């Protein structure tokens, strides 16, 4: 699921006829003050980051005058919320709220449902799961037929189950139908307004909202500016954008997934380039490395039988990081012939490691054509001055051993190549 920011979701809501508070985004305190001046009312200054709990973290502040908006924007724009830097704030009018509701359209992919579900609650502002657990009588649901869509009469029936004034229910219905239109038109996986508020003037507004777009539909919505359609809690890095553009985008031959686990590489820290094949084996391998205190620079996955050219590019991306070892845990037993991985690895490592003597390379490669793949690796990498260890299917469940070997080889390599010790060793000495 690809995320969009609150301000983007509000622009979409506005397009489909749902009221949103007047406001705009600012990247500087001056811009924030100018927006507050235009609004000429109390405003909320809201950090635009993909993190929950912004209010508690001080990422949402209220200002009565533009000068105050300036100060709040100055504070918020320098913040990191849950590790994420704030680069934009949304400055919008502060509303006088009478009631808070929740409205959401969420794809329920469970076998039982497999359809979008409309959820509405008379209590908003907090997590819907929490409300459903505490006060189930406040939450109503309707499974939407994906072929016929949502009919406004179905919303009437749903709201009729709750004690809501007729006039208010009519306005809520309009907002809910608008939310569904957004969900449908933008191929969302979920679209939520929380809280959906009733103001003291009797109008319904979307005060906060979350919209996630289906990864596979992002190409249909270029206007949203989603550069890497993936469920991430931060903006993609430059390397991730390159990898997406030149490995994954438009090439549906298997997976060539590449995501960085570190975005601020520190000098003196030791990082491992990680390459997995298939979810289970990859997770085991990555977890084993992390459990031993190693920092993996990235998470990569080449499963689903990608061509060797695609695998090769993923390895090139892995080596475009300050790594001190390359570890592959490929325990994909069924659906691909591993000799393609072998060809890609040989070509990439021969190009990358010609001038890096002693570099640690640990490869666990199991699956179809494993023996042939191993032979290709052994022959192809023969003569390359690296610390190479190859493991086959008997090591699939022995990830801890693979991690232990990685740790040992890295320590040897760093001592020999740089006359230094790895950051893991430093930590374990302390």
């Amino acid at each position: 699921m690809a995320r969009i920011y609150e301000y983007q979701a509000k622009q979409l809501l506005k397009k489909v006829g749902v009221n949103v508070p007047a406001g705009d985004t600012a990247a500087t305190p001056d811009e924030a003050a100018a927006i507050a001046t235009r609004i000429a009312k109390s405003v909320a200054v809201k950090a635009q980051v993909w993190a929950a709990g912004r209010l508690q973290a001080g990422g949402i502040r209220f200002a009565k005058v533009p000068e105050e908006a300036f100060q709040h924007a100055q504070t918020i724009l320098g913040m990191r919320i849950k590790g994420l830097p704030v680069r934009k704030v949304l400055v919008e009018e502060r509303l006088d709220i009478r009631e808070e509701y929740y409205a959401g359209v969420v794809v329920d992919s469970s076998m039982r449902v497999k359809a979008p579900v409309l959820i509405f609650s008379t209590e908003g502002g907090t997590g819907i799961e929490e409300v459903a657990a505490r006060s189930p009588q406040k939450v109503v649901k309707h499974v939407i037929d994906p072929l016929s869509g949502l009919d406004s009469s179905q919303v009437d029936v749903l709201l009729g189950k709750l004690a809501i004034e007729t006039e208010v229910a009519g306005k809520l219905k309009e907002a809910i139908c608008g939310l569904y239109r957004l969900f449908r038109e933008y191929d969302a996986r979920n679209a939520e307004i929380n809280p959906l508020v009733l103001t003291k003037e009797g109008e319904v507004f979307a005060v906060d909202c979350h919209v996630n777009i289906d990864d596979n539909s992002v190409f249909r919505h270029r206007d949203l500016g989603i550069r890497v359609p993936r469920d991430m809690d931060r903006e993609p890095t430059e390397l991730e954008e390159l990898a997406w553009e030149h490995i994954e985008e438009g090439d549906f031959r298997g997976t060539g997934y590449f995501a960085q686990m570190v975005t601020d590489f520190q000098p003196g820290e030791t990082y491992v380039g990680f390459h997995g094949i298939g979810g289970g084996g990859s997770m085991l391998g990555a977890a084993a490395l992390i459990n031993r205190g190693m920092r993996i620079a990235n998470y990569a996955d080449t499963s689903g039988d990608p061509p060797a050219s695609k695998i090769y590019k993923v390895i090139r991306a892995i080596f475009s990081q300050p790594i001190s070892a390359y570890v592959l845990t490929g325990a994909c037993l069924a659906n691909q012939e591993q000799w393609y991985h072998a060809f890609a690895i040989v070509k990439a490592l021969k190009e990358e490691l010609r001038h890096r003597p002693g570099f640690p390379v640990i490869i666990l490669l199991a699956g179809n054509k494993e023996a042939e793949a191993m032979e290709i690796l052994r022959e192809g990498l023969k003569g390359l001055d690296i610390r190479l260890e190859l493991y086959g299917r008997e090591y699939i469940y022995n990830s801890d051993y693979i991690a232990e070997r990685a740790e040992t080889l890295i320590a040897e390599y760093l001592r020999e190549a740089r006359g230094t010790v790895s950051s893991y060793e430093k930590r374990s000495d302390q």
Partner: protein
Amino acid sequence: MTEDKLEFETRCTFVRIDYTKCEPAREGTSNPACGFACVKADRMYDRNILRIQGNRPVLAVRKEDIKRLSNESLSWEYACNAAGRGAIEIIVPFPGLKEYRRKMNLPGGE
């Protein structure tokens, strides 16, 4: 006059076969030491893109069909390096990567 190289593109790669390095092409032998390893690899790992003609590997399909047919196994280059004289080069472009490495002061950016 016979061409001294064969160049073609697959979907994501650029392939160059240098006949001046290719043993059977250079020596005109039908029984080279490499055993036409590239063509054998093609049969085993790729999609019958190459064949032997006039003691050299040539295209077995039309150039315009290669992008659709080849599975980009990278096996031709490997086979020629392993059994022949390194006459096949497969370039897999990754635009922007070198510049990125240069900017990040990483190996391979120079």
